[in-house]
């Protein structure tokens, strides 16, 4: 795990070495054109930053030396000191030593600045152009200069984004070539395309790997945040962190940052009770908040668990009825998991009456949208009086995801595996028309089932989602997806394989259609539409 101190140190060294290289370049320029104000200003700026940064991190020798050099250069800038040969030698020596100090930061035996050189610097600064005092010859501490470059580079995330996009395109073309080589049945082509396959795969993982950061970079911000919120709320909170070394794509981490902050804030403000109340319920005074990360197959699972008062499902049911989200008769029969999903309805939880007792809802729909946007899943579980757990299933990488391929009305579709629960085949007789939907019994659980062809292709005016007669054939292939604590079985025409797909975002003007999360190209060159499970669930609810 990289601590913040370690991170600061690495940044400091990388930047200081960069400054050192620039200083060398500029001072050589200055030797040729001693009056160049632009170069002088730049040298001054670099030394100035180096001084301030070194002082901030506590490398006082570096900041002192930078300060001395800065003073010398500001004198040259003000024409109070001649850029003469002796002065040049001292300044070059000084910059060399700066370099040695910077690269020596990690040495077991610390590099000490040469006292003779420091004295020389003092002399040129104090005596100005009066060269009556002899400058002592500095023993060159490095005789042959070693050229060394930093092992660490900083790169803009958008360059990595671009690389990842290119890799995505490459994979699509590769798959096309693989499929062509099978068709053409040429041995040479087969050999080269299987080599291409391996290389692109390795390239894909290298680029994905370069984008990974430790979840700790986000988690480690929370102790302070939790302390501050708890302090403001007059609560006592113990925060337990685990899984900081789990790695995840930097952009995914960026996108969930606000969501996680929001959930933590909610847990402290509304979830965990005040010490007095906790004492009454035989709970320890200090509330417990556990933030953990772990790997689950290709995904990362982040959990936020509190031991607060939990969510009152009775109240959630009542509010749902009041807000006309569900009828009163139906509300009582709804399974708990579906009741939880009301919390994520827009505006549901912001209602004052809910905030008072459950308090969970302030903008939970916003959290859910953020997680949806990266193809993740949000799950909530709670027991009244015992506490609440939010579980975030997140993809490790944005670009490539495992998906299930199928066909409906001769169009290829894919659904990301993160949203699929199971795939099964049921006889038509096992599907039942209940009300205006179809349901099936999946191992004791009643799940709503919908014929995708009807949902996607029927005339909206005559759509009949509960009509079994619209199904083709006897055996039905069903993909069970899960979204917002709610399962939905999607009947498809033909079921194909699982495959890693590269999702291409739809370009304008199609990017606004939320039913599709994007498209992918199959090896055959055919276009395959990637269904957005949240949107298809919403569309179904709207149409049923």
């Amino acid at each position, binding site marked *: 795990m990289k601590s*913040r101190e370690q*991170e*600061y140190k690495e*940044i*400091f060294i990388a*930047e200081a070495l960069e400054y050192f290289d620039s200083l060398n370049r500029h001072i050589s320029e200055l030797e040729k054109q001693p009056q160049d104000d632009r170069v002088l200003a*730049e040298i*001054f*700026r670099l030394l*100035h*930053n180096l*001084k*301030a*940064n070194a*002082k*901030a*991190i506590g490398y006082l020798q570096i900041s002192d030396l930078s300060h001395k050099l800065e003073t010398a250069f500001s004198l040259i800038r003000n024409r109070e000191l001649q850029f003469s040969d002796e002065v040049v030698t001292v300044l070059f020596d000084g910059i060399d030593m700066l370099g040695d100090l910077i690269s020596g930061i990690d040495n077991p035996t610390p590099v000490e600045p040469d006292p003779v050189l420091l004295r020389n610097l003092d002399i040129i600064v104090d005596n100005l152009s009066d060269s009556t005092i002899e400058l002592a010859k500095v023993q060159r501490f490095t005789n042959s200069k070693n050229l060394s470059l930093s092992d660490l580079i*900083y790169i803009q995330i958008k360059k990595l984004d671009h690389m990842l996009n290119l890799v995505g395109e490459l994979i699509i073309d590769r798959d096309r070539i693989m499929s062509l080589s099978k068709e053409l049945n040429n041995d040479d082509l087969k050999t080269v395309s299987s080599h291409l396959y391996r290389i692109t795969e390795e390239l894909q993982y290298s680029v994905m790997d370069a984008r990974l950061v430790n979840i700790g970079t986000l988690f480690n*911000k929370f102790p*302070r*945040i939790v302390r*501050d919120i708890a302090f403001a709320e007059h609560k006592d909170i113990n925060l337990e962190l685990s899984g900081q070394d789990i790695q995840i794509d930097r952009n995914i981490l960026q996108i969930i940052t606000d969501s996680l902050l929001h959930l933590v804030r909610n847990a402290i403000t509304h979830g965990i009770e005040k010490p007095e109340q906790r004492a009454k319920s035989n709970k320890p005074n200090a509330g417990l908040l556990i933030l953990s990360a772990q790997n689950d197959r290709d995904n990362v699972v982040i959990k936020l668990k509190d031991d607060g008062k939990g969510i009152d499902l009775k109240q959630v049911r009542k509010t749902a009825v009041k807000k006309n989200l569900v009828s009163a008769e139906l509300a009582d029969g709804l399974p708990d998991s579906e009741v939880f999903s009301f919390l994520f309805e827009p505006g549901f939880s912001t209602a004052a009456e809910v905030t008072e007792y459950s308090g969970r809802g302030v903008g939970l729909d916003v959290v859910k949208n953020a997680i949806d946007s990266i193809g993740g899943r949000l799950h909530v579980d709670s027991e009244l009086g015992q506490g609440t757990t939010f579980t975030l299933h997140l993809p490790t990488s944005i670009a490539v995801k495992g998906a299930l391929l199928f066909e409906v009305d001769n169009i290829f579709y894919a659904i990301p595996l993160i949203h699929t629960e199971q795939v099964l085949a049921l006889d038509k007789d096992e599907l039942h028309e209940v009300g205006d939907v179809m349901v099936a019994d999946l191992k004791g659980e009643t799940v709503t089932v919908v014929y995708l062809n009807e949902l996607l292709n029927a005339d909206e005016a005559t759509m009949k989602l509960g009509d079994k007669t619209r199904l083709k054939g006897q055996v039905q292939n069903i993909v069970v997806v899960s979204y917002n604590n709610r399962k939905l079985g999607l009947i498809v025409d033909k079921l194909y394989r699982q495959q890693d797909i590269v999702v291409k975002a739809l370009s304008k003007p199609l990017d606004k259609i939320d039913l599709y999360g994007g498209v992918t190209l199959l090896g055959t060159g055919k276009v395959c539409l990637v269904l957005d499970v949240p949107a298809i669930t919403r569309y179904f609810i709207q149409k049923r």
Partner: protein
Amino acid sequence: MKRILIVDDSFYMRTMLKNMLTDAGYEVVGEAPNGQTALELAKETNPDLITLDVILPDNTGLDVLKGIKKDQPDMKVIIVSAVGQEVIVNEALEYGALSYIVKPFSEEKVLEAVNKALEE
């Protein structure tokens, strides 16, 4: 959440400032390493506050300050400077900067100045 733009040519300084500010619950809406970017981001993000380093590679921080104040006269700006820059700092205060922080800064100093400026 109050939105802050950081202008500093040192990545190290920006990182430190950003961490301090985000830990304290502020949103850092942008980081500018030079004057040009600073002026663009000031317009684009229209933050609640800007922390401005006075020594920048392209223009001086003073020019940036003037540029910002020209288009966004009410923009709150705090100067970040090192010791020995008192002349520039005084000038900056005349041009409408609210206060200044001296490098190397402590977290308390930064937050104190930022909180105060945002309250005004």
